[in-house]
């Protein structure tokens, strides 16, 4: 049984974060029970290319009805790695986001920002053998939300990653380098560790741009690492 490293919860938001008000009534109060991992935790769903279509990772094309979506064309790319810096290959990555005016294509979103007839706002892909992924999309706009009276979310993309076990499952958010709203956001501020916030900030990557077409950002995602198997007197893979 090769276990995953214990999750370092000091890097993650605690359940109760009163400045993010919705957490107040939705945060468990008793301590979690710590489990030693079993087959139930070290296994998880697997995905293949039959599950998705090639265009699914192109948010500029995958919902277009009458033309291109409005806004700044961007590429978001990076690797899914584990805490041992090993790539996580063949794992599903799903993203969702607002359009350039900060509006989500969701029947519950009532923000004044305009819907874009050519933008759905979701995409998905499977990492390659080296854990790489890429999306093409439109840079999302900032938008206001009901928390304090005047809260604005920084531009962000939601990211959902599976890894290879149920214990690696993670949802996080990608922010954009240089956005002044990051430092003002109560949801970002649920993360207690400044380096951990920095790790969620995608960096401008001019080398990955498509000249005269799309600007690029690089965003690596790190999932939990796993202990090596001890084979005789030598840790395998080390």
């Amino acid at each position, binding site marked *: 049984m090769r276990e995953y490293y214990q999750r370092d*919860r000091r*890097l*993650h*938001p605690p*359940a109760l974060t009163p400045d993010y008000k*919705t*957490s107040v*009534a*939705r*945060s*468990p*109060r*008793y301590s*979690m*029970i*710590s*489990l*030693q991992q*079993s*087959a*139930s935790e*070290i*296994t*998880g*769903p697997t*995905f293949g290319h039959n599950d998705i*279509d090639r265009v*699914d990772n192109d948010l500029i094309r*995958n*919902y277009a009805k009458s033309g291109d979506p409005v806004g700044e064309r961007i590429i978001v790319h990076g690797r899914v790695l584990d*805490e*041992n*810096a090993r790539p996580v290959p063949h794992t*599903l990555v799903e993203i*969702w986001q607002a359009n350039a005016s900060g509006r*989500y*294509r*969701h*029947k*519950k*979103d009532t923000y004044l920002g305009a819907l874009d007839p050519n933008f*759905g706002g*979701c995409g998905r892909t499977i990492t390659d053998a080296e854990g790489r992924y890429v999306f093409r999309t439109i840079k999302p706009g900032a938008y206001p939300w009901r928390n304090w009276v005047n809260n604005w979310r920084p531009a962000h993309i*939601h990211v959902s990653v599976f890894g290879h076990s*149920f*214990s690696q*499952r*993670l*949802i*996080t958010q990608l922010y954009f380098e240089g956005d002044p709203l990051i430092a003002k956001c109560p949801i*970002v501020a*649920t*993360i207690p*560790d400044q*380096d*951990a916030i920095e*790790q*969620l900030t995608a960096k401008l990557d001019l080398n990955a741009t498509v000249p005269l077409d799309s600007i690029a950002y690089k965003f690596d995602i*790190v999932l939990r*690492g796993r202990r090596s198997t001890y084979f005789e007197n030598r840790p395998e893979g080390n």
Partner: protein
Amino acid sequence: MAQKLDYLRESASQTAGPYVHIGLAPGAAGFDIYREELGWDIAGPNAKGERIRVEGLVIDGIGSPVKDVLIEVWQANAEGHYAHPEGGGEVEEGFRGWGRVITDFDTGEWGFDTVKPGPVMGRNGRLMAPHLNLWLVSRGINIGLNTRMYFGDETEANAKDPVINLIEWEKRRATLIATREMRDGIPVYRFDIRLQGDDETVFFDI
């Protein structure tokens, strides 16, 4: 001088927010985009074992149903094998063992159809009682919550289950056990998840 260890740090979790459906279940957000959404058929047509339905609510600290939660299910087949290379054995063709479930926006009710899993080999050769592994995310939940659902008609297996027995507060063990009733000839298990309160569901750090 301590040895320098070159590890990375796990990316921090962030809430899935109120619009999680756009990414993970766009049909529920009100639009079609993919050829196929994922996680709607947990067991597939060839799965052996008893066909069951599981239903419930997620209830917040003031007793209201949470109407925007998304739940993922991970379970073994009737023989206790997971559909994974380290899952303990073969599974039937089409058995995925993974499901994605959303709540009704008006009532908060969720439900799914699957097969009842078998006992799964746990640590040190101790069998675990049949169970579903659940993971919850929503607006206001900063990091996904892991819990398990056990079956109310497995009294004997539940009493010996090594995970249930880890919970010192015996009163809290009941929060993991679903009640069974028959409806139109199908067993229906009811499992309400409480995020806070005296009867707060047990959540696991896995």
